[in-house]
């Protein structure tokens, strides 16, 4: 997946589409951004300037599906997290999760979220849940899995037509589909045409976690901030 920060207007469509697709419940009373569940979250960067020179950029942040010594996989005490060798997706098994939150401590991107509350929907709204994704229970960790429900559906559709393998068109995550500016693009990194174009960078590359999300920007200040390591910038997101 690659994300063009310059195209992102921070409209939040991806966050909403994600929540709708993956049956993430709306916030209970008293939730703040520190306890909320947003598999994809748009962070706001600004160039720190004051007045009319002030500029914003928006950086959608989701699970980076780290490919090399994935932090969360090795720490989970009960194999609730694993890196799918076939798809390269880091999978989280809520029904196996103990809720020790060690993986959250391990994740440098804070892309994992804990169900602090019992999941609850306003009366009647549970009718709108997506049957392709199981709602999580309280006390477990969850995270983006590139809309695995859609992956399943695509597989099933292909199978119904007797195909084993998928076309790129068969399967895109909800956020990609929803992005109005098509800032988020999605494809198999192994295909040549999806090779990350030059000038694109990954977050916290130096940690050696091999994230699979590539970011692009033409603006230097954005690149400086986004590529920089921890805590060099004042925060806005």
């Amino acid at each position, binding site marked *: 997946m690659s994300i063009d920060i310059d195209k992102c207007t921070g409209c939040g469509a991806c966050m909403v589409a994600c929540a709708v697709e993956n049956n993430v419940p709306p916030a209970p009373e008293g939730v703040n951004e520190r306890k909320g569940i947003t598999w994809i979250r748009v962070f706001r960067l600004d160039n720190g300037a004051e007045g009319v020179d002030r500029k914003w950029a928006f950086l959608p942040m989701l699970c980076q599906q780290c490919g090399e010594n994935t932090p969360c996989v090795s720490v989970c005490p009960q194999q609730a997290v694993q890196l799918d060798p076939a798809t390269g997706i880091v999978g989280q098994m809520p029904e196996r999760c103990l*809720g020790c939150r060690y993986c959250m401590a391990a994740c440098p991107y804070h892309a994992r979220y804990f169900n602090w509350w019992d999941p609850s929907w306003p009366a009647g709204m549970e009718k709108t849940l997506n049957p392709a994704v199981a709602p999580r229970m309280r006390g477990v960790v969850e995270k983006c899995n590139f809309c695995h429900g859609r992956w399943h559906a695509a597989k099933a559709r292909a199978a119904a037509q007797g195909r084993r393998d998928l076309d790129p068109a068969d399967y895109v995550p909800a956020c990609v589909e929803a992005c109005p500016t098509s800032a988020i693009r999605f494809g198999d990194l192994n295909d040549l045409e999806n090779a990350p174009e030059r000038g694109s960078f990954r977050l916290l590359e130096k940690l050696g976690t091999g994230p699979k999300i590539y970011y692009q920007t033409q603006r230097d200040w954005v690149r400086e901030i986004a590529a920089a390591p921890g805590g060099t910038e004042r*925060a806005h997101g």
Partner: protein
Amino acid sequence: MLMFGLYSAGLCLVKGLNQTNMDNRFAFGLWIFLDLTVIALGAGAFFTGFLLYILKVKELGAVINSAVVIGLVCYSGAVAALLVDVGQPLRFWFTFWYPNVHSMLTEVTFCITCYLTVLLIEYVPIVLRNRRLRQVPSFLIFEFELHKLVYVLAGVGTFLSFFHQGSLGGLFGVLRGHPFAFREGLAVWPSTFFLFVLSAAAAGPSFILLTTWLVSKISNRQLVRPEVLPLLGRISGMLMIAYVLAKTVDTLIWINHTSPGAGVPAWQYYSWKPFGTWILFAEIVAFGLIPALVLLTPRLRLRSNWLVSAAALTCIGIALNRFVMTLQTLALPTLSFDPFLSYFPSWQETGTFLGVVGFGVLVYSFSFRYLNLFPQERDLEQPEAAPVREPALAGRY
């Protein structure tokens, strides 16, 4: 206190962890920090056992019972807190059934569970020594026989403790995502593994020293021979100095090599108030070197107030280290644009912890009341009465 603790714990279990002030960034909060500390302090049990039964340091026989009880208290408390801390306590057995052997946490879980069992077994003879229970012959014999085998348990305990104390350190050493905590090390174990073992071993005796001193102050009885406490102090001191040295070396390596390697210059961590470099200083010098030196200076060691305060400093130092490892690690931002967060435990968290402490105190004081924690105590009652002289004319009438 216990009631309040139970109530808060109940809240957390029934309503879920939203009762706490932990959040997605502060996945670990007060509980984990205190678990780490408590377990480090409880290390006295294994280390004293090790010295007494394996290295045959007889003098420690005076405190071993107390040490075991402390260990038991600390560990059971820690486990209790953990059960509240996890989101799905009903699934605790998953860790055993489907262990991920690469995770430090698995190691911790396994070891702590085993070690708790060991402690319980070690606790049994102490209980059975109670005069009433001893009237039952089978208990008596069992205690006797078990006590003959206790060195085996001590050995196992040492083994287990070594590993779980270490793994507790490893927990944070392996966090590649947090350059602040990440360390390289030997084989699968990051350096924090060994640091934790050392520090725990160092803190344990100090804590026993403290408790013994405290108990004898409270009950104002003399519980152990005067030379025992300084001995503990000395042991603690030696380990402490070793720890401080190791820690210093490790820190230097980390500042100059590991952390930059992860793309973060080390000064950055300390640019966030209130966690300035003072915390590093405090950890290594104020609460590390100084008490160590005090404990190693015979003259000071023999003065009880120096001894005790040094021991206290040591314990605080270890606590501080655990604090840095858990909370500061999580507080520091990793992404450039995420904020430095601070966290303050909610009353439910505090309550639960207080409950655990209350439970600990309760168990300990019961043991102290009904069991013979300090075998030397009997010998140490000084006869105030002058030796009886036979009256000259005794028996004339």
